[in-house]
């Protein structure tokens, strides 16, 4: 039985799609069978970041409406053969998604996969709410800045009220993934500190992904950073985060500015 994960944030541009691809690939590389679903109907991106845009035939909407079978819409990754993509439709909008349709697709994916990762659209409207609706766990992607943190707080409120698990009296397990963490700017006090972020959100930390040109470079060539540049600091941070999702105890080290490495080296355990 699969675990359903939603990658969400409220705010746009913080790295949901990049994180979905990187975490999905890292989990699949451990041998788990992983499906990533793009819920951003009308503004799909995950196919590009995964490098599958030229192989899309059917999409999520086709499957929810019964036009295509799930097997026809799932795209197997060319690099990791346990990784699959269910793309969004680019020509429709979020109103084309129905709760019943999404429920049926998620239920079918649960049978076949170990992890189902839902890439949520930005915002708190229908698309975002359907992406989180059936989640067991949530990865809340946050940049260390006030607007992103407040939006994440809002999303946590929705995860605690609008998901099926919340309505049944259970709770969605929540993780904070801090992305675009710039060690040099953090050292100068120009960003919110990790402690501030965690204090405001009072939710356990899954990982800290350092700002890296490699992430953008990988997105542009259509490959998750964890596959494209496995030695990159951001890729290693994603791999560690994926291990923590699997329940492994991996020590969490705050990314540091290399120039001041010895002054600023201090470790942190995942909460």
């Amino acid at each position, binding site marked *: 039985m699969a675990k359903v994960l939603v990658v969400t944030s409220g705010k746009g541009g913080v790295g949901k799609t990049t994180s979905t691809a990187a975490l999905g690939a890292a989990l699949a590389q451990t041998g788990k069978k992983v499906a990533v679903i793009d819920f951003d109907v009308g503004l799909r991106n995950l196919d590009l970041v995964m490098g599958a845009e030229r192989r899309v035939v059917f999409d999520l909407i086709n499957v929810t409406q019964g036009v295509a079978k799930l097997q026809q819409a799932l795209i197997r990754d060319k690099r990791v053969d346990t990784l699959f993509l269910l793309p969004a439709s680019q020509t429709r909008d979020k109103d084309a998604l129905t709760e019943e349709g999404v429920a049926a697709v998620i239920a079918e994916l649960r049978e076949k996969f170990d992890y189902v990762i839902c890439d949520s659209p930005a915002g*708190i409207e229908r698309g975002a709410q359907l992406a989180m609706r059936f989640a067991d766990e949530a990865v809340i992607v946050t940049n260390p800045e006030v607007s992103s943190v*407040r939006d994440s707080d809002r999303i946590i*409120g929705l995860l605690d009220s609008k998901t099926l698990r919340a309505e049944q009296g259970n709770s969605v397990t929540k993780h904070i993934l801090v992305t675009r963490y710039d060690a040099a700017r953090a050292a100068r006090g120009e960003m919110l500190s990790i402690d501030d972020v965690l204090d405001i959100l009072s939710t356990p930390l899954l990982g800290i992904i350092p700002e890296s040109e490699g992430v953008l470079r990988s997105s542009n060539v259509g490959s998750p950073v964890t596959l494209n540049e496995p030695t990159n600091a951001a890729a290693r941070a994603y791999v560690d985060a994926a291990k923590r999702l699997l329940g492994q105890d991996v020590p969490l080290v705050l990314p540091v500015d290399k120039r001041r490495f010895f002054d600023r080296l201090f470790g942190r355990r995942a909460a």
Partner: protein
Amino acid sequence: MNSADTVQKKSIRFRARSFVAFALAPEAPLGEWLRGLDRWTENSPGFFTGRPVLLDLNILKPTASEIAALVSQLAERGIRVYAIEANGIDTLGPNLPPLLRGSKPAQTDEGKSKSASPSEARKPAEASSLIIQTPIRSGQSIFHPDGDVIVLGSVGSGSEIIAAGSIHVYGTLRGRAFAGANGNAQARIFCRKNEAELLAVDGWYRTADDMEPTSRGRPVQSFLENGVLWVTALD
């Protein structure tokens, strides 16, 4: 910090209020209507003195110049027009009273008390506390019209708590808190760390900008005293 350190300035108070006014509805022909008004005021001199009078022009539908003439004719009779109600007219000249919209017929107090059953009215309101054990997230609104609200976690930026009684926050208060919202000047707000966007007691409020910087990030209480909303440190 003692209370002398807090700013002595009064906060500005905004409240929506409704008042009862007389609506005069002139009818054509205007000359006859004005003579009728004169007869009425002859019998009851001073009836309109100091009373708010609205001009309801929905029957007469005059032009702008006619409105100006009518307002001055009423002024000659000692009737000051506070506002004008006229559907279909969007703007009036600056020399004329402002336009009003959304009027309702007045309801007298007798009518209200008859509708409420006496047993219901006498039943004392039971004060009960609402205890919230989880953090309050951005966008959430907690409304408790019966008593105190006690929050064990933090109150996020962009959230709000509205309570008839006092508000106690044992985490950081980053959102907005309205205590004594139904008109209780004795209500207070307590929090362990004050990062509030707004604190209000009985309609008197103070925004983060109006709070002295020394109260930020500290345990504080906020209360009303002589019409001033105080925000003072607890330690």
